[in-house]
């Protein structure tokens, strides 16, 4: 990712006469890091973070399921904490450190323990809700101590999945936590 991709070229904008000129809301320059790369971009006041990631940066792994903060599909890590990118404006991310599903195991890097657990436990079917669950589960594994069952249940209840019936998602998260906090792949949390 380069900064050029995200910053509309004023000349190009004039040629296209498209979003930049037409946009009735104000423009702001923001600087942030996304999956470790620094990004500078011009964004409209009202641009959602989810649209910024998907449409401007081409990071389409972050999905939008409801655009009103309930389904959790759009979850990214904003300064290490799960955040709903559909309820966050891009301008609010000035100076932030963002992580998306694309940043977990870039290229051919091996899947992270959380990703691997979703695969091994069949914690996904259509895969549309999966990036959101994976980001929340990643945040759980990055806590200093193993979160207790109530915290895990609480975190997961912020996400909707229509395909799996959740059981295998719970197993996957449990497996990833076992692996992280017991120092190796443990039971499957059944």
């Amino acid at each position, binding site marked *: 990712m380069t900064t050029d991709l995200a910053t509309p070229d004023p000349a190009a904008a004039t040629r296209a006469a498209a979003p930049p000129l037409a946009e009735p809301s104000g423009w702001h320059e923001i600087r942030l890091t996304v999956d470790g790369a620094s990004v500078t971009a011009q964004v409209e006041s009202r641009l959602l973070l989810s649209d910024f990631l998907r449409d401007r940066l081409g990071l389409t*792994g972050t999905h939008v399921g409801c655009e009103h903060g309930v389904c959790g599909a759009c979850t990214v890590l904003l300064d290490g904490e799960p955040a709903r990118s559909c309820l966050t404006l891009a301008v609010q991310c000035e100076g932030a450190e963002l992580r998306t599903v694309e940043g977990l195991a870039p290229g051919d890097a091996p899947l992270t323990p959380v990703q691997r657990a979703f695969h091994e436990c069949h914690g*996904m*079917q259509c895969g549309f809700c999966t990036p959101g669950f994976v980001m929340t589960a990643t945040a759980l594994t990055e806590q200093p101590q193993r979160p207790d069952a109530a915290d895990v249940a609480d975190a997961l209840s912020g996400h909707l999945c*229509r395909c*799996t*019936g959740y059981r295998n998602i719970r197993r996957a998260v449990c497996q990833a936590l076992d692996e992280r906090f017991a120092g190796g792949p443990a039971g499957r949390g059944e």
Partner: protein
Amino acid sequence: MSHGPSHAPRQPAPGGGPWTGRPVPRVEDDRLLRGNGRYVDDVALPGAAEAAFLRSPHAHARIRSVDVTAALAAPGVVAVWTGADVAHLPAMLNKEELRTPPGLAELLDPYVAITPMPLLATDRVLYVGQPVAVVLAENRYLAEDALELVDVRYAPLPVLVDPDRALAEDAPLLHDELRDNTAVAVATKVGDPDAAFASAHAVVSEEFQAHRYVASPIETRAVSAQVDPYSGELTVWSNTQTPHRVREATAHTLGLDPERVRVIATDVGGGFGQKGILYVEEMLVPYAARVLGRPVLWREDRNENLTASSHAREQIHRIELAADAQGHLLAVRDRITVNFGAYNMTGLVVPYNSVCHLLGPYRVPHVDIDVVGVLTNTTFATPYRGAGRPETVFAMERAMDRLAAELGIEPAELRARNLVGPDEMPYATGLVDRSGKPQSYDSGDFPELLRRAVAKADLEGVRARQREGARDGRLVGIGFAMYIEATGLGPFETARIDIAPSGRVKLAIGAPSQGQGHRTSMAQIAADAIGVPFDAVDVVGGDTSATPFGVGTIASRALVNAGNATHRAGRLVREKIIEAAARRLGVPADGLDLREGVIRSKAAEGPALTLAELAGRAPLPGTPEPTDGRHGTELSETVHFRPPGFAVSSGAHAAVVEVDEHTGETEILHYVAVHDAGVIVNPMIAEGQVTGGIAQGIGGALYEEMIYGPDGQPRTGTYMDYLVPTSSEIPDLDLDEIHSPSPMNDLGVKGLGEGGAIAPQAVLANAVEDALRPFGVVVRRGPLSPSRVRDLLRAAGRPTAAR
């Protein structure tokens, strides 16, 4: 899932081999986990305009005028079209779904009203959410800004929400060309039901209502389209379950040859039937791409999905059961009313499924069912996971419990006394199936399903607890429900197999995947059929350019139809490979075997040839160079599989619940599902399908309802009001299975995508009623939300927590 001792011989499958029957991990996952899925909205189309639809705020109104001047002048707007602008395009009609199979037409002569849907409303709107205008702009933000500037004047008309009311003589007519608001009507009879009722020892007569709820895939619908300036071909990306049907309909709408239209459904974020029908947006987006000469994208928002994409399930059953003193069923009579919403989109599919699944696993000598579908000012209702079966099972299984109460028989015992036995298979019900043939259950063991469900749910233990009485106002209840599901709907599905020069196997099927894992399960089938390693198979589904024909992934049909097409194509390709190898090696074909991708002599010694060597360019030493003229060893096959009849899956579910008398809350303590879907190709995927189906059923039973006010306004248009269950509401399930292979196809498979969703509403209603039995409560509709349970208790004279 417990893969304990199975009832019928489990594996190897009739047509199976080393890969079939194994929980092979999914090949789809890696890509999806890295954020590399390709859902419609992920396909980059540089320069795309975005569409937003202006939708009717009225349930029924005349459109007096539409003024788009201000909208057209808004920043970034490319075009604004109203009904008048697209009136030259044919109205949309899903001819396939509205067709009455000849056998059915001949035997039952059903009535099916034809109600083509205008692409944009012209003079009248019939439901809240109906598209009235479309704005095309540089992006969605600007398109939505302009939507607010489209000035439509409406003259409201009287609104019909209640289907009974819509059938009244004086009801306003929703479609001028029809004689009344009937969408479909069909009646069927077996034996002499009137005489059976007259002579019965016991008759129960009840009205049950299946409430409206929706599929709600987490990915909303989306369509994009682009005309390739080089080839002139129109490419449409749609997250449809039926890409070939979308291709035919789009080509028809736009006046193009179907071969000039390519429809692609790559990753689809759940469908459950909602994405299995045609929608006007699917026609208008490609139209816009052609007219504007640039790509166009439309992505539905959640409010649109909840209110304006298809709904489902709303039915009223006025059902009567007649039985002898021992509880043997003598006759069933049911008058079914189905709320179709504003348009007849899928004809007999849902109502007739309700008819021919009402009897379920039970032996019923005399039957009298009629069903009427009714047009109302609500969003059109179409198949959703189960498609008429959860509704009809709700009515039948509730009625069985009422009969059990009437006769003082344990509900599970009443069921046991009426089940068709395994020795009676194939069993003819006397009804006509959906394709117009005499209905027949091909295989199954219903008593074993029930026996296992009763044992796992610990019926006796629950009864003992009930005798101890409620604890802290928490009452325990147990409920059962059984169902059959005719799966593997025809008419056909296509599989094409090509052996690439590298030796890799390319499999293309007409049925796309919305999470079912076809890339894995179909590859397992192909690997076994041909004799190659599983990971040598690449599967393409849902691209009309890869198979000339196809139907789609609906109606629990993909595994049966596409799976068997794959199997047959694989066997034929295998023969071709062996024959070609025999010619190449100069040995007789019957002396050769193909395993793990290597052709070798059946005798211990002898030459061997890999698929890559056979199919590849590089000639083997000693083989002649290609000669001029026809060669004829093309290693490829296309097979259309036409199922000879339905493969009938079945299941018995049980639930143990605790109902809080004061709060009205229902907690599921134990949910048991025992199912039979014949031979299982991938048990891990199968378990996931069953579990997901049950979770949707639990949602419908306890939480989800699409509610309309009497004014026809939907009241549950966001996820704040429409309650999809989260992980906290769905318990771990206790699953078990038996395997009665289907004699209807080589693989012995039956469909199971919908099965899980069929029984939960009935099971949980039966369990809640059982818990509240001390108060004489009768459950007649869902969802059993705390407030509805409290209403039931108050009606029974019990004080409950304030509302």
